[in-house]
């Protein structure tokens, strides 16, 4: 995985968070490891984030990955996305 790809994925994730996360902070300013729930992410919003990630990356989250921890930070989300895209 090249650094460029990591950045692209990151930007997409931040874009999804901006559109659907309803965070109390600007996703572009957040650290990759910052706790998203501390930034106002609710479980309701995380569900819509999940749907948007599926659409953006053309992936499907299996039931066992619909856990709090998967959406806890931008890094965690990127990890999950990489896993599901096989990248």
């Amino acid at each position, binding site marked *: 995985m090249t650094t460029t790809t990591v950045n692209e994925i990151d930007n997409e994730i931040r874009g999804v968070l901006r559109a659907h996360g309803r965070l109390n902070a600007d996703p572009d300013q957040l650290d990759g490891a910052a706790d998203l729930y501390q930034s106002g992410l609710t479980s*309701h919003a995380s*569900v*819509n984030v999940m749907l948007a990630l599926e659409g953006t990356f053309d992936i499907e989250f299996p039931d066992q990955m619909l856990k709090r921890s998967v959406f806890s930070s931008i890094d965690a989300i990127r990890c999950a996305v990489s896993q599901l895209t096989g990248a």
Partner: protein
Amino acid sequence: MGAAASRHPGRQALPGVWEICAAPPGAALSGDAQRWQAIPGAWPAAAALRHLGQWSLAETPRSFDGQDWHYRLRFDAPDAAANGAVLGFDGLATLAHVSLNGEGLLDSSNMFVAHECDVGMLLRKRGNELTLHFSGLDKELEQRRPRPRWRAPMVSHQQLRWFRTTLLGRTPGWSPPAAVVGPWRDIWLEPRDAGSLRQVDLHATIQGNLGVVDCRLDIELPRGAIVELRLSREGVVATERLERDETGRSFAGQLRLRDPQLWWPHTHGEPALYQVSAVVRTGGRTESGQPEQMVDLGRIGFRTIELDTARDGFSLSVNGVPVFCRGAGWTPLDPVSLRSTRAACDAALVQARTAGMNMLRVAGTTVYEEDHFYETCDELGILVWQDFMFANMDYPADDPSFAASVQLEVRQQLRRLQSRPCLAVLCGNSEAEQQAAMWGAPRENWLSPLFGEALPRLCAELAPSIPYWPSSAHGGAFPHQASVGTTSYYGVGAYLRPLEDARRSELKFATECLAFANIPAPAALARMPGGAATRAQHPEWKQRSPRDLGAGWDFDDVRDHYLQLLFRTDAQRLRAVDHERYLALGRLASAEVMAACYAEWRRPRSGCNGALVLMLRDLWAGAGWGVVDDDGAPKACWHALKRALQPITLLVTDEGVNGLFVHVLNETAHPQSLEIELTAWRGGDVQVAAGKQTVVLSARGTHSVPAVAMLDHFMDLGYAYAFGPPPCDAIVATLRTTGGAQLARAFHFPGGFPAAAEADVGLAADIIDITEGAVELSVHTRRLALGVSFDFPGFLPDDEHFHLPPNGQARVTLRGAGPLPAAAWVHAVNSTRSARVAQRRQTNE
């Protein structure tokens, strides 16, 4: 006068033997190597296999959507008219390809669309072969399609939103796993020669004091033919000549009737219907030698329906009179075939009417019902809340092919249904907005233009006199807000709120409510896979208890919660130590909760104008949402509803520091002279107060009176003040005619229901009359008896699970076909000792 011919004189089922064959998805059939099996008719696959003994609901679920299903019919058509025959398919589920004699006839992808094919050229006098090929939905669902903007957890596959098919059989939480695949409505052949009626459009409206019938008939007739529209009710009432239009192929006209008898829901008046027929005189003679032919066009009724949504409310008025709508959600009597016989359907509807129900909802999770369902609702005076077949999902309204299919479906269904007086509301969908909102979707996505614009436009065009409502839960800051518009009300119920929530929610209209896992009678439990020995925590019981998928609770838990609330008993412990009593209290718990809620909602000052229990009948044997079991036998809650929903009735509510109030309701068109009797009891048999009041209720009138007003002193009947020990623990209010006949009775227990069983309340029961198919019992009790029930094998009581005051007596008729049982018992939930039914003593004759 010729005998009346049906609207479709030549229409017949196809002769010959239908055969069915399963195949792997997408596989082409290779000649007769396939295993074809003969079946009684063109039935859905599950119904066919059930008949062949190869599958049943008791087995491990089988995926009918996981295979392709082929049907074949070899038949002769010796009478096939050379110039015109039509092959009709009233319903094909869902992805179907039809061929006749090797030629492709049609492709269908909408289960709710009927097809008619001109087969004059293709049909042979002998040796026709009709084949139907149904493609398995599962394979289609694998294809990638754009994702929905929200999910509907109850649906087995989210992309079912792309397919015009029922959700029955595809909601693992509450419907039996038997998705309908195959032909599910009639397949017929009709000669289309001159003189056959192609289409009928009838609209009955009221204009001032006139009943107006607009009629158009598409029919090919020779020059000089005369067509007359005839309206009759107890004799011929009115006729009107219909004129041929410019095309020459239609006859149209308008008939007016002065001061017609109006159609009313049965609770408010008589559902008056007029027979409509067309008399055709061609100048020659018909085949039977008659100078004219009479074609039956069915029956119509004159009524107006108006919706008033002022002050956040939802109130339906029929003929200018506001109607409190109560009833339940209707489901097909057989979830496997989705068909019913006319007799079975009529019996089920009569039973609903007997319970005082005046509205049934055909929900978007089910199917558009058969004609005879609506005909009988017209006849019995039962209003229909008709959803279009959409539920919970994010439908692809933007997809042109989907939108076109929906247009065709809706046009056909509206054309079929719009003239029916029973049709009260046309509703876009079941819970689609609610699901979107609950899922967290942004507000602007909740109401799709399909339900906000497209459907209402179609309804305005084809059914302008019937109110349109966008969704079963609609109105307010969020769709499921109870105090505005309509909602799915589960405050009392799944959300475990106290009974007071029935009032606090300020419910205006519940299109569904009161969903519990209602425990049926022992006979129904015996029909479950585990049989009579099934216990409530066994997997076989749990498999049939409804649940919201993904929730950590089910509807047994909801019932248990209210059992604990009402009877102050630990439900789980009771289930462990006394399963029989657990079932008995469970039956009573959902019944009493339903009765208490309706008392709140029917209370004259309540802002509620209607509530429909989620489901009328169980889809399969078990503790389902139905108030009637899968076989049609009433559960305890049906009897409680019957007592709560009659047009003339009495309710008791606890108004706190204002004491108990007695409300008397008269929904009928005639004044009623009635007597209210109030008695208060302590300790199970000591009367501590009694009072009476006569009241004359106007037509459509109500009367509310504080209970204490009927006494000549103050008494803390509701135990709001608690100055000392409770002065009474049971209050009984009885409504009688001035002639003394009992019309209604309500009980109130200020300290809650008697939770413990006493040793013996002194029940006694005697047979006082035996006739063909019925037994009359006289039941008596010395002390207050709670939840009186019968153990009378082979017989169903007209009334059951009722309470009796001390020294009370009731006459109950039980009906059954077989011989009297050797032993029969009467139980009361608060009595350990039951009474054996004494045989009538032989008279000396």
